[in-house]
């Protein structure tokens, strides 16, 4: 039977592993969503440039192709795209908190300036010469 100390160490390590796993999962989620975002973007481009002659397009749902009007399809994908952008944004926000939590658990110092909100692009432009060093 394990004594109290090793029990505690084990518990601590489990917690750290869990936090690390959480970070990795979120990262993978972002990657997956970005993949989807890029294929959607390719589809939108294709609709715009390559399918200019026909009025209806075939869209693949699962393992079935359905003929849909072009404008409807574009609308649908665009909506999906906006949803994806929002999801990725939310995941990134959450990821920061999770990385912070992991660092804290491992006793690492918080990143400097981690909580700052970014300057606007005009402000960055104004002091750009300082940053390019």
């Amino acid at each position: 039977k394990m004594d109290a100390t090793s029990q505690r160490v084990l518990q601590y390590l489990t917690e750290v592993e869990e936090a690390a796993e959480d970070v990795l999962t979120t990262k993978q989620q972002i990657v997956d969503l970005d993949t989807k975002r890029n294929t959607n973007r390719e589809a939108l481009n294709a609709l715009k440039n390559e399918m200019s002659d026909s009025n209806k397009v075939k869209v693949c749902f699962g393992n079935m192709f359905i003929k849909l009007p072009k404008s409807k399809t574009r609308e649908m994908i665009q909506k999906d795209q906006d949803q994806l952008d929002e999801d990725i944004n939310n995941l990134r926000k959450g990821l920061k908190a999770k990385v912070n939590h992991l660092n804290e658990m491992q006793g690492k110092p918080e990143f400097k300036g981690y909580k700052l909100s970014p300057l606007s692009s005009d402000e960055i432009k104004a002091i750009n010469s300082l940053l390019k060093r």
Partner: protein
Amino acid sequence: MATTKVPEVRDITRIERIGAHSHIRGLGLDDALEPRQVSQGMVGQLASRRAAGVILEMIKDGHIAGRAVLIAGQPGTGKTAIAMGIAQSLGTDTPFTALSGSEIFSLEMSKTEALSQAFRKAIGVRIKEETEIIEGEVVEIQIDRPATGTGAKVGKLTLKTTEMETIYDLGNKMIESLCKEKVQAGDVITIDKATGKISKLGRSFTRARDYDAMGAQTQFVQCPEGELQKRKEVVHTVSLHEIDVINSRTQGFLALFSGDTGEIKSEVREQINAKVCEWREEGKAEIIPGVLFIDEVHMLDMECFSFLNRALESDLSPVLIMATNRGITRIRGTNYQSPHGIPIDLLDRLLIIATSPYTEKETRQILKIRCEEEDVELSEEAHTVLTRIGMETSLRYAIQLISTAGLVCRKRKGTEVQVEDIKRVYSLFLDEARSSQYMKEYQDSFLFHETQTAKMDTS
């Protein structure tokens, strides 16, 4: 655009006085702030180092912005060393500005301007830049010219990371910048989403061949990981002075010009202060009060001291550390006597750390550290002789003898400095006491000699 000629803002020149203290790596304290006898290049001065350690912790926690510290002690007792130690322990992120009291006297700039600049150099502002970028390895790049020769070009760019691959349709502008950057398949590039700026990071490792003919500056990099469209956050630390300078030099975002003097107008400074405070309110900036170190502070005059008094009360003020080796002496620019040559009202605000002369054992250790620093091997007897010289004349003189003796030793093709080498340089170079002795004996034969020269006026 107005074409007014803007005089360039002059910076006060920085004089490196750290040569003699290049061996200092920190204050040599343990985690409980207890000083170790010999550590990080520091020897002895336990009480003052502990005091400096307490102040250091307060600076790190940001508790004592706008306070001032005075390090007082006889010449050669490690005042500058302690200040350097504080600087080293603060790390790269906390601004540390060092200047010598006499540096502020210049014809080009008023004393208070020089001091203002030094103060503002010692205050850092931490800000964050956030950009959306597309980062990937170029798999294929295909550009079609229209058959007629004119008109818009079209093209496709295939990018990949270790996780995904996608095709972008290229517009005219994009094609132009890709051509300008000479982007080829196998390059790893980033595209700034907001500006469309393309930068080449290097060539992908997977494309490296045995006999590639490449420019010397071509760098090989790994294929990027993760998602293609990334968010990049960069945290910068700039000093208030740097922001002042760009805003007086150009029509910056506050669009103000400096005057004709090459000094920064106080209006500019006030505007910058307001802007930075606004940023802080919005959570866009953190202010890092740094450290301003003024060595030989007795060289400042009454005007400067009253400026310091006022500057310390500003809410954007760094920690001021001063050092002096004077006792009760005249305040420059007045006829009043005051301890350390500093007015009583300023002295009253200071935390004072005193340093005391080194013991023989400590002197010996310092000389040993300096020998290592200057790469001079010293024999045991020579070390003892040098320590005696250090005790009887001054530590600085003994340290000077190390490198000179090292040279003499190398000239006779020796590997280790012996007592003879020390003796030789001791006879070649006079220390302060022997030099004064010499002057007393032979002063009649010097030129422009005045018999009743009173004490030299040092102001």
